[in-house]
């Protein structure tokens, strides 16, 4: 230990400052970064005004980071995470869809296995409907009753909208996705079984099923009352009375079209297939060129403003950061873009 004692002298005299300097330089070589994130900007957005829309941001499965944003078209400003601000708690795990009915907002929380009812203006939660397995979409079929499709349960839940409780289930052979109401019947897609189920909203029973092809998850109704179902390899037009397939438009290339939407006048179809495509309901063939090219963006959500006609497209980027939503005019020109939440997937128009 003699060496150490010899060192003591050194340390006290000269070595200490030198060494400190050396270490300082070393530390300074790597610039210290600020890790505290900037607080989000407060925006004065009037939620639920006439010219605006809700964006449901799914968030990541099992992370519980779903949010709903509101976009005010006139000012171009966005209010983020409405639910957290209004209720002081997180919305939940995977917000699959939002539907406004009779002045109430219904948020279908897929992996929280619940439907949250909110006031569309204040976003204060007024009720929670629980007991679902993996709910996807809600369709009010009367003032008192709604259907909720489910990804796991082989059953469509029947919900009492007055009490906000599940009152029963419609047994189905498989999982169900999007659904529409037409002429007193609910038409429900069942992508795993290549079917569209027809349900009587009076008896709450499947009365018929229409065979389509695999992956048919989205369904819309046009101005003539016809139903359109988009499957992995074809687009079908279905007669709502005879339940027969009237027209089949087959995709030739190996594509994955999805998210079929229709405009407010119910005469123009829109869907995603990497790019955004659109097709008139009277067209004789599928569109050959895209309407809005993705150009390296990851188009995940699609919506068409029923009154104003703007097309909203969401880029989910890498699914682990806030997505970008684009607003296009009905001519396909970009009007605006803004940041939404994580995995923006759905649009709900006020």
């Amino acid at each position: 230990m003699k060496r150490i004692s010899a060192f003591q002298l050194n340390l006290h005299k000269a070595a200490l400052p030198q060494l400190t300097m050396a270490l300082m330089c070393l530390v300074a070589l790597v610039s210290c970064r600020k890790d505290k994130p900037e607080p989000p900007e407060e925006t004065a957005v009037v939620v639920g005004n006439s010219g605006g829309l809700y964006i449901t941001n799914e968030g990541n499965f099992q992370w519980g980071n779903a949010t709903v944003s509101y976009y005010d078209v006139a000012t171009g400003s966005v209010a983020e995470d409405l639910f957290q601000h209004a209720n002081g708690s997180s919305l939940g795990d995977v917000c699959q869809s939002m539907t406004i009915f009779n002045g109430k907002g219904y948020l279908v929380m897929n992996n929280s296995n619940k439907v949250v009812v909110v006031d569309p203006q204040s976003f204060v939660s007024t009720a929670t409907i629980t007991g679902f397995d993996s709910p996807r979409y809600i369709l009010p079929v009367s003032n008192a009753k709604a259907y909720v499709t489910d990804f796991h349960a082989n059953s469509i839940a029947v919900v009492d909208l007055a009490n906000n409780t599940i009152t029963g289930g419609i047994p189905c052979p498989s999982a169900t996705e999007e659904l529409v109401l037409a002429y007193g019947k609910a038409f429900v897609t069942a992508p795993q079984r290549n079917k569209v189920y027809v349900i009587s909203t009076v008896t709450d029973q499947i009365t018929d099923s229409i065979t389509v092809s695999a992956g048919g998850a989205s369904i819309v109704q046009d101005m003539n009352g016809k139903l359109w179902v988009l499957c992995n390899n074809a687009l079908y037009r279905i007669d709502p009375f005879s339940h027969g397939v009237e027209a089949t438009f087959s995709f030739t290339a190996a594509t994955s079209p999805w998210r079929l939407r229709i405009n407010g006048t119910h005469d123009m179809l829109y869907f995603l297939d990497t790019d955004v495509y659109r097709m008139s309901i009277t067209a004789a063939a599928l569109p050959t060129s895209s309407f809005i090219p993705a150009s390296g963006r990851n188009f995940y959500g699609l919506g068409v403003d029923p009154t104003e006609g703007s097309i909203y497209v969401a880029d989910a980027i890498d699914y682990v950061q806030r997505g970008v939503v684009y607003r296009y005019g009905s001519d396909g020109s970009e009007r605006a873009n803004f940041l939404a939440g994580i995995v923006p997937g759905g649009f709900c128009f006020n």
Partner: protein
Amino acid sequence: MKRLLLSVSAWCMGTFLCGQALSDTVQLKAFEVVAPRIAATLPGAKMMVVDSATLIRYRTTDLGQLLANETPMFVKSYGLGSLATTSFRGGSANHTAVLWNGFNIGSPMNGQLDLSLVPVQVANSVAVAYGSSTALWGSGAIGGTILLNDLPCSNDGTRVDAGLSFGSFGDQRQQFRVQHSGAKWTVAIGAFNTTAENDFRINKEAVDEPMQRQRNASFAQHGLLGDAHYRWGRKDRIGIHAWYQQTDRQIPGSTLEGNSTAGQMDGTLRLTADWQHTGTRATTNARIGWFNDELEYYANDVVQAAVSRSRNVIAELETRIHLAKRHQLHIGVNNTHALALSDGIPREQQQNRSALFAAYRYTSANNRFRSSISARQELLEGDVVPFTCSLGADYALRPWLLLKAQGAKVYRVPTLNDLYWRPGGNPDLRAENGYSGDLGAVLHVSFKGIVIRSEITWFERLIDDWIQWTPGPAYWSPHNLLQVWSRGVETNTSVGFSLGSVGVKLGLMTNHVVSTNEMRTSVNDASVDKQLIYVPMYTGHAKLGVTYKALSVTGLVRYTGYRYTSTDNREYLEPFTLADLWVAYRLPPLKSCTLSLQAQCNNIFATRYEVLLNRPMPFRSYQVGVNVQFHRPERRTP
């Protein structure tokens, strides 16, 4: 001012280890066996050896808790008893290799190891090697390497060690080990059993808030450990190790998920055999390990469980040759054969990797300069994967100041899941590859009975072809997407002194890690130059240990900074600081028996925190335990 603060913090930095500086009672007898490789003494390498006193403290816990509390590793824990993986120096879980007796025990399917399934008891020596050592250990040893060794002793007589503990949330642990060690034979058998409900409170007790408890989080684990060693002559030893364990646990959902009913069963059998021959000029080791993992995951009672099976067979031959007085050569071959079958890999898939590695060491005549060069070439299914090599050196500038430098070329081959998972597996993936470097200084002084050891390290690492799973049109698929630049400064300082019969140990450890993606993956990608998710930029540990006669008290405070939960760093989790207290008392020995009592309080200030988003961790918890040790030394025949 900022610089001043930095230099001050650089001075206050710390490590808790440091066997040299602080006289821990090393209970392990002098080993005549050498740990695999020579990583521990590789010039330029930074190592942190968990001291034996600390190891005893964590004997009944899992490796995840030990590493989170005592090392600079960030452990991504889903909760008590739940999945725990590491992030070290800004890497992902795949970038930390876990080696048990020299064998990589990471799953060949996902390249990771769930640290909550590794009882600390499986090793009597735990060390963490910082930085890249792929030249020594092969694929994946990029951010760091966890070295678990169960080293045998000899002529130690008979030891029996039995422990029992009870803790909050229905935590009960029992552990037992008996060992006999003679001149020729050493035989040991151990068993452990842990059960816990883990039904901790997930919200604070408040008048207006109904109390909620964590649900579906129970944990049950039992296992057997055995090893036997036989020596003959003065030069040869053979040994076998066996590690069997069964874990049955429920998997809690996040606070925002619906009721989880999921569960998982993990069955593991690890068998190894090794032979060591110590010649006059060379020491040769041959070892083979057989590792079988079976995992059964069920979402609920109705759905059929998803079963995954994997098997790794690793064979290795290495020899260490003393070429001349100051020159040492180390060469070896390794063959790793992995096999996997699961719901995601419906057809059995195999992967064979062969490697040739060599290291050369030089020590200068005055012992002040040491250097090494090592290289490794691996063949993956007969194809050449990136050549890897490393250079390291240290130089004692002064008796009290050691300078270290290390540089390496690193790689990680894709896992079986990356390649073959259905759907999505991408057989065209390339190996991740890159460079890493460290510069460090170790200050080691003692004056007036105060021993100070302080180490500061600056590291840089750039990895290309970073594999990332991303969603495609129909399913997720891995691609060589990102380029990740990780850099940072780590400090480790310990101070030890005695005041009469009171021994005091102080440790401080700080880590600043910046790990950013440098590659834009699409037009709107805002993740460029942003910190990777779940890599805290700042972490720190402070520890104070006081011993007085047979009583020892240890307090630990650790800080974890912001963790981002989105790649654009807009979403984040708040930092947290936790404090733990541990008290132990050893009763006076009665004949050959020693009884020790310990009590522990975790998260003393009942801090509410989440390591991962919406995965609450327990508030205050307690544990009490008793341990009996019996030792009858070997009778020596004259």
